[in-house]
């Protein structure tokens, strides 16, 4: 009985800290954090202001705060050397600046996708094999090549850390930490990573001077049917959540969606990535094939890739030679850079309950 007294004191403190929503979210009457996003505000918005479909059931503020600590805590890897933030570094658009992510000094097959606006994606991983963030988190956590954990090891480790026990007790009303609840908290935190306040958004919502002339020209090239960019990178999320074969050479014959679906015609097909914060997440494509946005624009301008890893796979039918002028390509890149917005970037915690170093790891190029 006495043993429970101290934790409940800590519980009170942590609960009061955590009942605040991060910026960009608003605590509503259901005591949950709901999005405060212009594109989700009203029905019937059209054109560039068009709202997108999303059911906002809200997130528990305590889970968000707890998930943030877990996100940065290397305790979640077998060798205590990787946190989620190692490959999804806040300072690098929640990617890692690498063509292919690394764990334990070895390269993984694909690049780390950004987590900005990941809450709104109905499919996760480059090959879309997870349909929600809870499912997705199990991938890197339990992959032997990555964090190499097991649910048992997570529970064993975290239940030995009193601070985590207290936090979980106040959040989940159970003094035993389950892997399930760990994943649930991580997902809640990831759902708060939203970016809709770029200069582009300000332009869309009535600030004509938020973009300069070249950037507006770039937007119009982006929307043009010579490029057809918006067909797949549809505003406001700048993805239509479909998959496409664009034929980039990846050097390792990545099967892509063929593995997810068992359909050989989807060999080399990958999820259309968002372009939000694209200026922060170089290099580009699933295999990091392009170092700069100018390289990507050139690639599409030339009609995409001819690297089709399976005879039954076809290049996406919207991709063809564009014949853009040098100025148009430059304007397009200038426009893409207006999609940068880190106004709701969460602060990296100064410490995590395990006492391990919370910052992203040593492989920080550049």
């Amino acid at each position: 009985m006495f043993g429970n007294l101290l934790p409940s004191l800590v519980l009170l403190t942590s609960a009061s800290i955590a009942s605040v929503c991060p910026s960009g979210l608003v605590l509503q009457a259901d005591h949950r954090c709901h999005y405060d996003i212009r594109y989700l505000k009203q029905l019937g918005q059209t054109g560039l202001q068009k709202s997108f479909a999303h059911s906002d059931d809200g997130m528990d503020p305590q889970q968000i705060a707890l998930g943030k600590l877990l996100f940065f805590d290397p305790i979640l890897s077998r060798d205590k050397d990787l946190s989620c933030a190692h490959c999804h570094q806040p300072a690098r658009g929640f990617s890692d600046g690498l063509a292919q992510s690394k764990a334990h000094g070895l390269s993984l097959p694909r690049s780390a996708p950004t987590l900005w606006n990941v809450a709104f994606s109905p499919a996760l991983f480059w090959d879309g094999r997870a349909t929600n963030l809870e499912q997705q988190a199990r991938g890197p956590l339990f992959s032997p090549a990555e964090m190499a954990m097991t649910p048992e090891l997570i529970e064993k480790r975290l239940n030995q850390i009193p601070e985590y026990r207290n936090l979980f007790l106040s959040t989940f009303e159970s003094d035993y930490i389950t892997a399930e609840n760990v994943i649930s908290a991580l997902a809640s935190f990831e759902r708060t990573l939203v970016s809709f306040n770029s200069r582009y958004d300000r332009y869309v919502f009535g600030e004509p001077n938020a973009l300069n002339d070249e950037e507006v020209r770039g937007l119009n090239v982006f929307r043009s049917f010579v490029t057809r960019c918006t067909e797949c990178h549809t505003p406001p999320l700048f993805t239509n959540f479909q998959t496409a074969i664009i034929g980039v050479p990846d050097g390792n014959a990545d099967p892509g969606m063929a593995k997810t679906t068992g359909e050989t015609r989807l060999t080399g097909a990958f999820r259309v990535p968002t372009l939000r914060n694209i200026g922060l997440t170089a290099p580009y494509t699933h295999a990091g094939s392009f170092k700069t946005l100018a390289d990507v624009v050139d690639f599409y301008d030339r009609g995409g890739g001819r690297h089709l890893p399976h005879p039954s796979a076809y290049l996406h039918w919207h991709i063809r030679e564009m014949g853009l002028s040098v100025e148009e390509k430059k304007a397009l890149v200038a426009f893409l850079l207006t999609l940068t917005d880190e106004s709701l970037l969460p602060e990296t915690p100064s410490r995590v309950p395990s006492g391990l170093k919370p910052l992203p790891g040593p492989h920080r190029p550049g």
Partner: protein
Amino acid sequence: MGLCKFGRQELAILVFISTLMPTARAKTITVSAGKSIQEAVARAVPGDTIAVEAGTYAESVVVEKPGIHLIGIPKDGKWPVLEGGGQRNDGVIASGSGFEFAYFRVQNYKGNGVMTQGADDVRLHHLIINDTGIYGIYPTRGKKVLVEDTISWGIADAAIYIGMCQYVDVRRNEVFKSVAGIEIENSHHALVEDNSVHDNTGGILVFTLPGLPEKTGFDTIVRRNIVTENNLKNFGAEGAVVSQVPRGSGMIVLAGDGVQFEDNIVRGNETGGLIFSDMDFMADSTAPDPAVDPQYDDNKVLGNIFLNNGASPTGKVRLLLVATHFSLHGADIIGYGKGRRNCIRSGMAATTLGTEAFTQCAAKETTASIKSMFDQAPALEVHQSKDKQSGETLFNAVCAGCHGQGIRLIGPPVEEIQAKYKGNSQGIVEYAYYPTKMRNGYPSMPSQSHLGKVELKKIADYLLGLVPHK
């Protein structure tokens, strides 16, 4: 913060109202030859008319504001002409709702003639469009779209292309010498009526294609069109879906559902007059999409007149006919694949191939009661905060288009839903959130999860409390 937010919403409502109602402030800005239309757009406010005098305008026009009317003033046979010179990308791109574009010629652009992106309540009429690259007239992702009284030709994809739209009328247009005349793609509630469609590769196409965010296409009426001699050699870009349309196709339904053909004149199309096909027939160059039903279902061929179609089929149709019917001739009506619940009116004197599974349509069945899809659209959702919307408003705005009282529209009538979910509004919420295909003979309901469960509950409670009309 709270105050600030409220202010913004009120502003949005005001802005919205001002776009819907012509106000005393609405003005006309006249543009003369030699001046810039785009510059006039920059000065315009919602509700304004930009009147453009005859002359050549070598520019691309982008309209982001709502409620803009861009209207030409042709005089003595001379038109205002948007001229792309083979250099510029698109004639007009508009993303503001309530956009009207009329009395213009648009020619020689590399991309599209006129395109609307995500704009609702769009009216495109009295236009002459030629040689504009990919599409002539292309509204996409819009509700309430009107395309009337236009002429277009020389387009490498579709002259008129309706992409992922709802409540559309395409009426009294002439389309020719293009790869596709009129294409209705992954759209709902479209009326294609009184058009002249000739000398294209394929005349009227109703397609449900894979890989797009909208996974279904249903409820299209194709009525009183004259579809003749669409025998042009296919000049579509390699890789484009339409590049696989066989020359000589009068009308094609590809994986489309709920398309009704009535009172069309269909003559001299050398591959076939009306071809129904499953997805793999033409869309095999696109990556497959498990979320799209590949079959053509619930289509009806009511009274039409067919003459002399299928004289010399080409492409896959030819191969297919040789392989399965030992024939070198096409037919007025061709079925390919495993379509379900399709019917043909008897006594039309049409030649058929592969339509054994079609039944006879009911003798008196007609689309005559539907005069317009555009006018049938539910009131566009207005800018107001979600919590101010009642279940009734939401039901009428979102659901009533498909679920009628005492009548089957697209989905089951209200009474059937009430019987099934009596006392269980949460059941409706769960279903509307993640719909599953429940009934044969009905198209799948699209998920309404974007409304959120709170709003869905309001709708469900309202629906269960509805009393029969008297």
